[in-house]
């Protein structure tokens, strides 16, 4: 039997474009100390550390986890680094869960940090994630891979640019409630629709910023939680599904899933929901933190999570179903469209979901939130993670 595991502490730095006042070491420490304080612990209480750091090239230090580990005072304790691209923070959390649920550790620090502003254009780095033999030289990157999704959504489901824009407007509206968010200025539908095209049909305001910042969570085993913590976010279910890197495999007649959709997220969610005993997600989930770096990806996600029928996510977004006072508030934090510290982004979704079910989300608290879901996305929209957190075990 797995050891029941909960998040008992959350720490986030503010997410900003630049943090020239600190090194990546200090940034990771900043979030970790906040999480430890929130959990009422010190580093001495921690049995093991999981670091989530996405491509080293964004930081310019190979195997940068070792340098960050030094600042955290990890030695001689266990340190394990996870890098799965965009899902890195969520994969680190899943690895952290495995440390505790296996009985191998009682208190684990999961931390992720990024300073994307120190590298050149992130899209250059992300181009080097593409197949060097078949696809890199046709200029693929993380933005145009989502454009391909949007184009297929528009073709198959008649998703409109206005529906996409509604996601951006809502995210910014929510971000005003979150002091950590990078972009907090309100925007209108017209602002989004009149912003310049970056990669057709995605416009500047359909896209996330690139941010610097760090996020940390403390996970603990049930006996520790029961003895020391009045509030906890219990990890009730999780899943992950990977697909091929080749987006074209999700388009031709031989496809198993379609690049327009996130059936992989639906598979990961099915597993997480089953573990959590969720049969009717639209009713049983109170709040969602979705890793949606581009407007079109959130539409795919709300459908995959069972909040909207396939093809109807855009319309429901436009109609306000995912607003703070809607049926299922999505991204009260402002989401990834308001802050994207790449390595930490997926962990921030989990951290925000944990704060919601702990009742610690401050101005962005969804009243009475009891059960939350957090997702992650990485690679060529090929890695998907899902985690269900609840206020009871």
């Amino acid at each position, binding site marked *: 039997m797995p050891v029941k595991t909960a998040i008992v502490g959350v720490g986030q730095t503010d997410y900003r474009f630049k943090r*020239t*006042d600190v090194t990546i070491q200090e940034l990771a420490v900043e979030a970790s100390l906040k999480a430890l304080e929130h959990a009422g612990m010190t580093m001495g209480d921690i049995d093991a550390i999981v670091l989530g750091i996405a491509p080293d*090239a964004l930081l*310019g230090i190979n195997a940068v986890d070792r340098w960050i580990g030094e600042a955290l005072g990890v030695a001689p304790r266990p340190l394990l680094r996870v890098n799965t691209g965009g899902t890195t923070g969520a994969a680190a959390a899943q690895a952290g869960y495995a440390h505790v649920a296996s009985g191998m550790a009682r208190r684990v620090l999961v931390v992720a940090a990024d300073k994307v502003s120190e590298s*050149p*254009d992130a*899209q*250059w780095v992300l*181009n080097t994630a593409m*197949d*060097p*033999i*078949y*696809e890199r*030289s*046709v*200029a*693929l*990157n993380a*933005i*145009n891979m989502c*454009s*391909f*999704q949007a*184009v*297929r959504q528009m*073709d198959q489901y008649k998703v409109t640019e206005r529906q996409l824009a509604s996601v951006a407007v809502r995210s910014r509206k929510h971000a005003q409630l979150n002091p950590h968010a990078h972009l907090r200025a309100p925007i209108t539908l017209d602002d989004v629709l009149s912003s*310049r*095209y*970056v*990669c*057709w*049909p*995605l416009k500047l305001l359909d896209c996330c910023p690139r941010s610097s910042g760090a996020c940390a969570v403390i996970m603990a085993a049930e006996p520790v939680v029961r003895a020391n913590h009045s509030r906890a976010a219990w990890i009730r279910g999780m899943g992950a599904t990977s697909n*091929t890197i*080749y*987006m*074209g*495999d999700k*388009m*031709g*007649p*031989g*496809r*198993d899933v379609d*690049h327009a959709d996130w059936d992989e997220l639906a598979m990961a969610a099915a597993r997480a929901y089953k573990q959590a005993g969720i049969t009717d997600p639209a009713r049983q989930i109170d709040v969602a933190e979705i890793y949606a770096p581009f407007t079109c990806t959130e539409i795919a996600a709300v459908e995959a999570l069972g909040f909207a029928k396939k093809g109807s996510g855009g319309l429901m977004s436009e109609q306000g179903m995912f607003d703070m006072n809607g049926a299922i508030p999505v991204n009260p934090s402002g989401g990834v469209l308001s802050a994207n510290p790449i390595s930490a982004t997926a962990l921030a979704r989990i951290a925000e979901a944990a704060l919601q079910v702990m009742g610690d989300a401050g101005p962005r608290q969804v009243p009475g939130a009891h059960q939350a879901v957090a997702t992650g996305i990485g690679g060529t929209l090929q890695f998907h993670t899902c985690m269900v957190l609840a206020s009871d075990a």
Partner: protein
Amino acid sequence: MGQDERVEAPLIHSGEWNIHYDYAVGETATRFFSRLRDEGKIAGKRCPECKAVLLPPRAYCERCFVKTEEWVDVGPEGTIEAFTIVYEPFDGLPQPPYAVAYVTLDGASTAMANFVRGLDLSVPEVAARELAVGKRVEAVFIDARKGTITDFHYRLK
């Protein structure tokens, strides 16, 4: 130790990464690129179990987890599955605007990405209507082929 109250502007140290790689393309892609370069032909590999014709060709089928053996010529015409037109300059990537599309070449089970050339991209809405999903294209082979994926590109029929 004295109290130092000067406030210094944070220092920035610059660094460069210039890592050279020699990517072995392997026997499967070697055959694909050689044929592309020498004969101007595009070929995929068929999975012996699910029968999918994989393009770009792979030495194995990820789904059935078996090696592929049989080569199948595809194209040169095909259908657009998804596209984008890039208007923003990115470091290390071509000068915009440029169009990239995933195209299922006739006879293939999967779509393959490449540039779409020969189209006026200056007005996004107009160019996007030209490049709709479902439009037919053909592969155009350049003269000075080197055995790389940009030895060809797509052009609207």
